[in-house]
């Protein structure tokens, strides 16, 4: 019954990356240009130093007057200072621009994500559960933040800098620069070896860290159960166990790095040694100057930084890519309904030979027919898993039936535009989420423009006006997470007040009060009665008195309606309902 939300495939990810690149091409190119200029400025040092060495060595050899040499030195150093200042200023601008751009791109990504999430088809929202979505909203968006804000710019910059450094080395001393090649085989082989193992290693490691966080979180969230069941020492062992397996994962990735790090470190240094020896040979044969050798050697040292950066972010980028695929994956969800032109001609809801299967071949409802009279209250009872909730969802237009049809006033319910459907039929579940917002916003969801009076009237209808006005800021009191906490019953009253404002003619109540303690449930039933007044109601009920109070009762067993009639009729009929009713009244 649970569906997992889609994850974008490779093509989809590439398409989206290309789209982002296209949308931000101009500022992106400007930023890259600045970074490149900063990198060029940074390459001035070794170049000037090489020239200086040649100058000074030559001057000493030729016996040039100190003042002349000193002036040349002053000029060269002045250029160096100018280059440093230019590099600093350019780096500042480039860095600022790339951060600003990344903030913008990241903001766009997360807003697009939430836009898609809030437009998910009804049936997907009902079935997927919120867990996957919540983890995409938190973990994946966070992971992406790191990649977009730091990873992507760092890789670009490191790449540009590396390339420019190599180019500069080749330009300064083409023959000495051949020494760079000495580093490639080691770097390539070691990195290939590492990248073949690292992603899985780090993924496993991250999963264990997730378990640590879950385990510690549960210690706190479920503290009453830990205490009641005397699980303290078990939980201590569990935390230690999870830490133990995390350490094993950490040790594995450390062993990978123990091979990789020294290999790449040597790959950086071997070219330097080669450049010195090879450079010495070249100088002796007057093929390159000492200054050129110096410059190339210094460039080789300077290359370590960006190449390291490039390698370090490579791993990170894979994490980011996985998160990116999950964040943009939502757009692959297919719409669950097609709008039909038919308009409802009345408020009569009618199910005709309805069958439904979440998975093909495993139907949970078989040929159910039901006609609801406007204003009627129908109670649906039956054992768990009989298909009661599924029937409720079909009537509320959440899912389209696999066979048969569910219509309101002659129009297929899943063919109505969403706004139209909402204004006619609402599903109320045991879910009683209080949004972190003002109480007013919590009530006026369906009708954001409602006046103070309308909101208060709705609250009064569900018997909640008094406690709401007693809150510190009345309707403007912040409730939900980090706000004033509401009791379960109050939360449910808020949910009911929403319905009063939304004003649909038909309500499907799916065990709406079942998670409340009986006292709260009793109080709520009064509030509920006010909401139900004048509306057609399908109440999927746990409590028999709810059924007793209904106009008709449908007993659902094994995906079929097995008994349907008034309370009196069913008690008379002597079926399973009558049996339960008798035990309720102590006649079992």
């Amino acid at each position, binding site marked *: 019954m649970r569906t997992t939300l889609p994850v974008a495939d490779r093509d989809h990810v590439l398409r989206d990356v290309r789209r982002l690149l296209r949308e931000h091409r101009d500022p992106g190119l400007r930023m890259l240009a600045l970074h490149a200029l900063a990198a060029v400025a940074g390459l001035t040092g070794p170049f000037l130093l090489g020239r200086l060495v040649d100058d000074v060595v030559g001057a000493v050899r030729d016996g040039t007057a100190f003042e002349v040499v000193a002036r040349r030195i002053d000029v060269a150093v002045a250029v160096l200072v100018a280059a440093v200042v230019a590099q600093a200023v350019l780096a500042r601008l480039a860095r600022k621009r790339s951060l600003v751009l990344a903030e913008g791109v990241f903001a766009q990504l997360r807003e697009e994500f939430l836009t898609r999430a809030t437009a998910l088809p009804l049936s997907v929202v009902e079935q997927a559960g919120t867990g996957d979505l919540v983890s995409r909203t938190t973990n994946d968006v966070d992971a992406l933040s790191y990649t977009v804000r730091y990873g992507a710019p760092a890789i670009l910059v490191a790449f540009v800098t590396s390339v420019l450094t190599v180019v500069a080395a080749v330009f300064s001393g083409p023959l000495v620069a051949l020494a760079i090649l000495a580093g490639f085989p080691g770097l390539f082989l070691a990195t290939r070896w590492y990248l073949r193992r690292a992603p899985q290693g780090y993924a496993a490691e991250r999963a264990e860290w997730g378990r640590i966080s879950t385990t510690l979180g549960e210690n706190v969230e479920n503290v009453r159960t830990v205490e009641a069941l005397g699980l303290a020492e078990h*939980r201590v062992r569990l935390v230690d166990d999870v830490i133990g397996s995390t350490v094993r994962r950490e040790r594995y990735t450390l062993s990978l790095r123990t091979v990789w790090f020294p290999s790449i*470190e040597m790959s950086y240094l071997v070219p330097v040694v080669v450049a010195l020896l090879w450079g010495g040979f070249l100088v002796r044969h007057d093929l390159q100057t000492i200054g050129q050798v110096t410059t190339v050697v210094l460039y080789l040292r300077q290359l370590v930084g960006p190449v390291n950066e490039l390698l370090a972010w490579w791993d990170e980028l894979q994490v980011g890519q996985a998160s990116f695929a999950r964040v943009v994956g939502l757009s692959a969800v297919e719409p669950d309904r097609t709008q039909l032109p038919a308009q409802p001609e009345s408020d009569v809801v009618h199910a005709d030979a309805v069958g439904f299967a979440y998975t093909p071949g495993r139907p949970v409802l078989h040929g159910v027919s039901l006609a609801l009279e406007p204003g009627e209250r129908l109670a649906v009872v039956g054992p768990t898993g009989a298909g009661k909730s599924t029937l409720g969802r079909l009537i509320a237009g959440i899912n389209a039936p696999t066979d048969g049809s569910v219509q309101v006033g002659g129009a297929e319910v899943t063919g109505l535009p969403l706004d139209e459907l909402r204004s006619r039929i609402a599903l109320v579940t045991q879910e009683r989420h209080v949004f972190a917002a003002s109480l007013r916003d919590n009530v006026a969801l369906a009708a954001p423009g409602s006046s103070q009076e309308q909101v208060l009237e709705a609250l009064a209808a569900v018997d909640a006006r008094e406690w709401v006005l007693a809150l510190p800021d009345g309707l403007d009191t912040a409730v939900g997470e980090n706000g004033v906490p509401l009791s379960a019953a109050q939360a449910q009253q808020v949910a009911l007040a929403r319905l009063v404002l939304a004003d649909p003619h038909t309500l499907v109540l799916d065990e709406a009060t079942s998670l409340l303690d009986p006292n709260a449930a009793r109080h709520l039933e009064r509030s509920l009665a006010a909401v139900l007044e004048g509306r057609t109601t399908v109440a999927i009920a746990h409590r028999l008195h709810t059924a007793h109070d209904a106009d008709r009762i449908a007993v659902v067993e094994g995906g079929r309606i097995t008994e349907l009639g008034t309370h009196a009729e069913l008690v008379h009929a002597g079926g399973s309902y009558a049996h339960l009713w008798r035990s309720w009244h102590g006649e079992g």
Partner: protein
Amino acid sequence: MRSLPLSDPGTPDVSSPTRFLLRTAAQQWRPMVAGSAIGTVWLLSQAVLPAAIGRAVDAGPDEPDGQGDAAALTRWSLLVLALAVVTAWAAIARHRFGVTNWLTACFRTLQQVGRHTARAGTAVTAKLPQGEVLASIASDGPRLADAFDVTQRAVASVAAVVVVAVLVLRTSVPIGLVILVGVPAVMALLLLVLRPLQERQRLHRKLSGELTSIGTDTVRGLRILRGIGGEEVFLDRYRAKSQQVRAAGVRVATWESALEALQILVPGLLVASLVWAGARATARGDVTAGELVALYGYAAFLTSPLRMLVEAADKYVRALVAARRLITLLEVPASVVDRPGTAATSPGGTLTDPESGVTAAAGRLTAVVCDPPEDAAVLARRLARFDDDTRATFGGVPLRDLPVAEVRARVLLAEDDAQLFSGTIREQVDPERVHDDAEVLAALEVADARDVLDLVDGGLAGTVTERGRSLSGGQRQRLALARVLARDPEALVLVEPTSAVDAHTEARIAGRLRRARAGRTTVVATASPLVLPEVDDVCWVRDGRVVATGRHADLLATDPGYRVFVTRDAAAPAPDTVPAPRTPDRTVKEHP
């Protein structure tokens, strides 16, 4: 690292964040010292590399004929190679010590947190808000541990700066002094920028946290939003906050890029001044060309210890913040503790709450019906000693006089909120793995929860996601019931164990519960007319005091108040008449 997890993480010093960090450092001083020593070797081998390269350049053929120079060049180049090998070895050794220190500090702290949160009981949640502090527990460990990794590099950086200064002093005293004075000055300058940067980062993190909350809140309530509307309102709110976060990020960028620029500018100017002085010295013939190259190398090298020192300062500040948060958690004392002189043990048997007058006779199934019903939870908590105000007795011995561990082992309270842990179905029922499959399945059977096995792949080994949030309320409740039944405690106190299940299932569970608990003391707080016929005794409690006791059927017949409360039907019909439908005038259509 081999010793992790530590068999005993030790007691943290919660008197201040600094002391907390120092105590943790003291507990792992050996790897800290070793790591710092190797870190110093690592940086120094890089620091002297420019000198070796310089010598190699000098050995380079000033004199075109010099064969001896070629040998010198080879020698110095081999020294460069040797230094490279040392650097590579020290780098990985340092990294390994860094990881060891990081993991040790992190896991020591998390083990302390794990022990404390498990043992302090409800006190932690009673005292601290379930919000940011608790959410950050797991991330505070790593942040705190960062301080222990970076310390090695910080120590090594200071050592490297001093050694480089000394090396330069040997070439040129004024240039050496420039380094000795310049580096601390540069550090001070960089730290000046670090402070406003951290402030903006804090604000950015705070806003990001708020944004995540809005996002989470929106998707958690998505069923409601999609069901009755309001998506646009919440989307707009998210967008507005998202733009605030972006703006805060831009402010961070201003300072971050300023720090970046300073980290280029200041060492760059240092390089320029060294090159200037060095080149002039070379021109005068005081310094060789190789020494000039070395000077440049030293100055360029100094960038990296400087960056590490800035990083260390940044991480220390964050570690202190993390330590402060962890302390607020670790200093909460446990809510229920053994009283001094506790040694008694109870013969077991009858469970009594003198405050209300409720008595659960040994070996019998007793129901407590409370009006108002919320009194039931309070009463149940007294019966199981959930705080030390209780006067309840077990087998005549006050629970308060018994060791807490004994009370928990013998008297089990199952509240109605059915908290599950993430893990397999088996672990839900038998977290400590002390039962065999048959016992687990039997408990699931009694709680009528075997259908949950069909929802997951792998039966008992199937995983329940997100602490059971993937299950319905009724499924969670039945799993939690199976969990307490599997433990088969001497005395079991259940609060509304079937409030979230349908009537059919409730009736089934009631009968099975009775058989499963035969001969054991069981209290069930409920007002369900489907459970009450199955119990031996009913205590009818009004406003906190027992007003009647007896069998359910007798109380129904004799106590009208009880009857009305339980059946919720003021005009309850006599047992053998059929109740009239409420709205007999409504036409009823039959459908197959």
